[in-house]
């Protein structure tokens, strides 16, 4: 191998010398330079004549050079004229020009760079201002199809670069595309490509014509990313939101206001693997799902695999969302803060010495009118029913009751410390987020010798803790490894107890009624991922993963009856291997296999996967994928008629809870040119071993004799559909139109033999995303239309005279989910402006209106039988909601 490399270098040198020798001296310059600095002129010469000029920026004087015209002048003469009187001298050797201060000797032998042809280039892509490494950036050799992408740490290796003077095109969503000119000097070591973020502030000089905008569809099947930087210009209830923005993509359902989790291609949010800096996040909702639990200030990159995902990822049926947190500014201290009608947030970035960075972000809600509006709209089930004022004491005097105002909030915190050395990166990432919804009230009654203290506890809290310690090493140009240990904890506690203590004549009576539900999941994971780039056309990825799960679930009623008390412990070990091979420069084939051993069932689960893309022309690509997926840790929906549907995480065991299994089939075609992208993808997903838990079929009156594990129900499903996307990628006006035709049919024998549409089934979903830049403003508007969700409705009622002569009414229902709620649609608009605040920093002001035309969208319905009449009540989602955000940052 080494021999081969040496030989290659030798050949390259020889070849280069043959071709390029004497050329530099022979260059004749024809140029006019006015109003340029010396550096501008030198850079232009480098670009125009493809020459390598080595200079030190600090050596060059900064002022404007008096106008100069050259007409077929030899380079030598040009340089003499340019450098005259500037205290600089130069030498030309082997096509390389070296400029130094007059007092510094030019050691030619040191400045000789090997000329390279058809060589392998490696380097790193970074944000120019913060030094933040940019993951999954696209690197192409200009005018070829030869390209690669940076890895999660921003590193890339590009094979077969034709010459050391080739031009690279480097693209990253939310950043200006950069043309990067190679030179023998630059390629002599790892290259650093710095990209400039798409800045809404400036209209100065347009640096490059094109820049990557909000959303990028990858050439790999079903992969898409969005720029966290640009997401903030989209309208949202409480400002920018990662998950809500992803819901604007085709194939991701947008009409679930009560969950910010992603319903990807008929999958449910728990079938979507959410990785944040490598650790799994089990619950992504803030405030009843109106917001996602991630602070965009802490996020650098988000990538969504809508299906057919790689062997590297496992444990989920449908999709993967990989979130890479920011490292923080390497160069300068930075901080910022923001406020909206809903929350305040702040961040700080501190460089730690030469190699380290520290980032801290935090967000917390406060109880504004907006918070209350949302809170009320999700607690509206009580508002439609007037509760009869009944009191056990009858109408009596001396009764004092104090109600506490409900207090609720959410917060999230992110912190990350990163140390980067030559080949190694160590990072420690930490996340904590919590929601606390407290609707409790206190009762104090005292009258004539008797007192009752107590009240109603209605406390719902949930949250996540996550941390990961990552070591990645760039062993050499071809081998990269990433080792990670992580811990993730999700907890959800619900305490709805009415407890009263009655003191009377020295006697104390305790009364406790209600439910307590606690779910806690802990996930300890070790992961090692390796990438071995064997050659330009062949890259192998392999790795291991070991996870240990500890999940508890407790559900009790009235202090006494335990309905569920599960303690599940499991370990899951997996290995995977994947090969990414490119044939004839047109066909990329990625076969992979993942094998997992799950100790609960003592079985090995094999998941073969394959995907391919074929470039028919430069613009037209075909894509296809197939794969099998298992899911061991599952979220199970528990139907609860009194407190809404709740869910809990538990582990599959193949006894009462099956291990879920899915098979994906995906095929698609895309046409992409400089400005537009058109794509269509069809998917078919077969789902096995779905679980549901429901006490609806359990008698509620005799709890001692019931085995509550019998109420887990198993089912199957099929999700299929086709997605269309038309995107205008660049320009003052950009955005996209998407349409998804989809279907998710479930079959749970408990509901009958017929297939029925799943609760989240949406037939047609149409979305338009528009962005328009005007001066310092960005205007955006999104419109979402979705077929109404299915629901089960009563078809009739009947009365029975009971044994004691009383009459009871019963409602009969139609087949499951045969009715549809009214169609969902909503228009949101936003305007965002960035403005400089002199040397003090950058400010940003945003206005947004959610549900502009105040569409009444129905969440669900309730039915009540009153004297033979069916009273149907719509429980509606949020109406028109304005918001203003203001934020400030130093840089």
């Amino acid at each position, binding site marked *: 191998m080494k021999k081969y490399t040496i030989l290659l270098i030798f050949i390259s040198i020889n070849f280069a010398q043959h071709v390029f020798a004497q050329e530099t001296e022979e260059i004749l310059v024809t140029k006019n330079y006015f109003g340029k600095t010396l550096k501008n002129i030198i850079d232009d010469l480098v670009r125009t004549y493809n020459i390598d000029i080595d200079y030190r920026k600090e050596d060059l004087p900064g002022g404007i050079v008096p106008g100069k015209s050259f007409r077929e002048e030899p380079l030598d003469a040009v340089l003499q004229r340019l450098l005259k009187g500037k205290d600089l001298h130069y030498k030309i050797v082997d096509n390389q020009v070296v400029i130094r201060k007059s007092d510094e000797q030019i050691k030619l032998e040191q400045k000789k760079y090997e000329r390279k042809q058809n060589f392998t280039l490696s380097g790193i892509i970074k944000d120019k201002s913060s030094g933040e490494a940019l993951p999954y950036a696209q690197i192409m050799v200009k005018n070829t199809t030869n390209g690669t992408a940076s890895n999660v740490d921003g590193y890339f290796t590009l094979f077969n670069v034709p010459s050391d003077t080739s031009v690279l095109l480097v693209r990253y969503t939310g950043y200006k595309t950069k043309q990067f000119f190679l030179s023998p000097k630059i390629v002599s070591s790892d290259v650093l490509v710095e990209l400039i973020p798409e800045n809404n502030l400036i209209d100065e000089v347009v640096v490059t014509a094109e820049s990557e905008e909000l959303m990028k569809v990858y050439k790999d099947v079903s992969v898409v990313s969005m720029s966290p930087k640009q997401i903030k210009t989209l309208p949202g209830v409480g400002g920018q939101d990662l998950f809500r923005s992803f819901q604007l993509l085709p194939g991701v359902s947008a009409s679930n206001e009560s969950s910010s989790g992603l319903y990807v291609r008929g999958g449910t949010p728990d079938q979507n693997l959410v990785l944040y800096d490598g650790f799994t996040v089990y619950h992504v909702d803030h405030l009843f799902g109106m917001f996602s639990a991630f602070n965009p200030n802490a996020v650098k990159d988000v990538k969504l695999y809508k299906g057919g995902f790689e062997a590297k990822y496992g444990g989920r049926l449908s999709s993967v969302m990989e979130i890479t947190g920011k490292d923080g500014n390497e160069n300068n201290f930075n901080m910022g803060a923001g406020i909206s009608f809903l929350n305040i947030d702040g961040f700080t970035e501190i460089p730690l010495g030469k190699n380290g960075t520290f980032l801290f972000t935090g967000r917390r809600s406060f109880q504004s009118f907006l918070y209350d509006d949302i809170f009320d709209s999700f607690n509206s089930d009580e508002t439609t029913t007037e509760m009869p004022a009944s009191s056990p004491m009858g109408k009596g005097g001396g009764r004092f009751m104090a109600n506490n105002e409900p207090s609720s909030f959410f917060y999230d915190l992110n912190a990350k410390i990163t140390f980067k050395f030559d080949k190694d990166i160590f990072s420690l990432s930490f996340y904590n987020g919590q929601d606390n919804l407290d609707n409790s009230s206190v009762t104090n009654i005292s009258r004539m010798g008797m007192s009752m203290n107590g009240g109603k506890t209605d406390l719902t809290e949930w949250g996540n803790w996550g941390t990961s310690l990552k070591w990645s090493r760039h062993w050499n140009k071809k081998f990269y490894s990433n080792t990670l240990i992580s811990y993730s904890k999700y907890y959800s506690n619900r305490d709805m107890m009415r407890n009263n203590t009655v003191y009377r004549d020295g006697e104390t009576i305790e009364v406790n009624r209600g439910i307590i539900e606690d779910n806690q999941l802990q996930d300890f994971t070790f992961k090692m991922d390796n990438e071995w780039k064997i050659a330009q056309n062949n890259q192998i990825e392999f790795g291991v993963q070991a996870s240990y799960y500890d999940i508890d679930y407790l559900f009790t009623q009235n202090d006494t009856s335990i309905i569920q008390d599960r303690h599940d412990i499991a370990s899951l070990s997996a290995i995977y291997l994947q090969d990414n091979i490119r044939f004839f420069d047109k066909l990329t084939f990625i076969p992979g296999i993942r094998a997992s051993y799950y100790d609960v069932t003592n079985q090995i689960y094999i998941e073969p996967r394959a995907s391919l893309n074929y470039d028919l022309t430069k613009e037209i690509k075909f894509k296809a994928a197939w794969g099998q997926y298992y899911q061991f840790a599952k979220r199970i929906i528990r139907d609860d*008629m009194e407190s809404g549907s709740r869910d809990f995480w538990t582990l599959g065991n193949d006894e009462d809870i099956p291990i879920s299994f899915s098979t994906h089939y995906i095929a698609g075609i895309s046409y992409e040119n400089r400005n537009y992208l058109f794509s269509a993808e069809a998917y078919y997903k077969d789902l096995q071993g779905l679980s549901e838990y429901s006490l*609806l079929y359990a008698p*509620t009156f005799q709890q001692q004799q019931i085995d509550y594990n019998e109420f887990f129900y198993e089912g199957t499903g099929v999700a299929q559909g086709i997605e269309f996307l038309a995107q205008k990628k660049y320009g003052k006006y950009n955005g996209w139109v998407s349409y998804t035709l989809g279907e998710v049919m479930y079959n749970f024998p408990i509901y009958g033999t017929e297939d029925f549409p799943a609760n989240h089934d949406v037939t047609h979903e149409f979305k338009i995303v528009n962005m328009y830049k005007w001066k310092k403003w960005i205007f955006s508007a999104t419109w979402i239309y979705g077929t109404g969700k299915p629901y089960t409705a009563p078809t009739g009622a009947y009365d*029975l005279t009971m044994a004691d002569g009383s009459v009871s009414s019963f409602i009969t229902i139609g087949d499951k989910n*045969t*009715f549809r709620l009214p169609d969902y649609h909503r228009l949101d608009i936003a305007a965002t402006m960035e403005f400089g605040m002199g040397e003090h920093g950058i400010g940003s002001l945003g206005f947004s209106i959610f549900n502009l035309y105040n569409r009444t969208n129905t969440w669900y319905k309730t039915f009540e039988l009153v004297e033979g009449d069916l009273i149907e009540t719509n429980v509606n989602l949020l109406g028109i909601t304005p918001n203003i955000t203001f934020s400030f940052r130093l840089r």
Partner: protein
Amino acid sequence: MKNTITNILLIITLLNFYACDDNDYSFTKEDIPIVEAYLIPGEPINHVKLSKLIPFLSEDTLSYAEPISNVNIRIFSGNNSYELIESKDSAGWYYFPDTTTLVAENQEYSIELSYNEKSVSARTITPEKPLNFKLSQNLFYIQRMEEGDMPTFDVQTCEITWDNSDGSYYYLNIELMNTVIDPVNYMITDTITQTLTTPVISDVYNITSRNMRYYGTYRVILYKVNEEYAYLYSTTSSTSQSLTDPYTNIENGKGIFTAFNTDTLFFEVKEY
């Protein structure tokens, strides 16, 4: 109000047509019979009622259950078969004309009828009379509380017991017999004179003097019921997110075919 509901339902119906092609099956359930049939040991077969559902989705919004007439209903027990006839005065009510034929205890009975060319059936077992039904006390003295009086916190308990060696379901109906209401406390202004419990597998129920809100004679009926009857008390959900059909033991129908047995005791509440 009713008009609005009709309109909403109509819209839903239309939407439903719009949304699904093969939605006709959601209406089929309307045409099932509702059976309400009770057998009481020691009494003739005289409580069998057939009706249709009160439909929510038809255009002639009926808000009452239409009786089902002219149906041949048979009740079987061992080798005996009883053909019921419909009451002339009340449509949909059926009985066995021979009133000397009494329902036996501890016997399996089944019902069969044919409706809309479908065979509708159910079965049940008649329970025995509750055994050893007892009240710990049958006379209570409670001090009348007038305005300005100091309340007493003297609590008396009446323990109601019965035998339940076979783990059967029981429930109670405790009812004031007096028609003129005489509350024990000036603060009691309502007229809630009946306490109904729900079926449980138990052999005891306690009432305290705090439940005795009026002076007078109370009747305590203990119902021994079957499991299928007890299931009727399951709570059913009312939101579209989790609607379920109510429990029934009728094959190809809705409602209940069951049997129960009772025993009755009395107690009195008097002024101190």
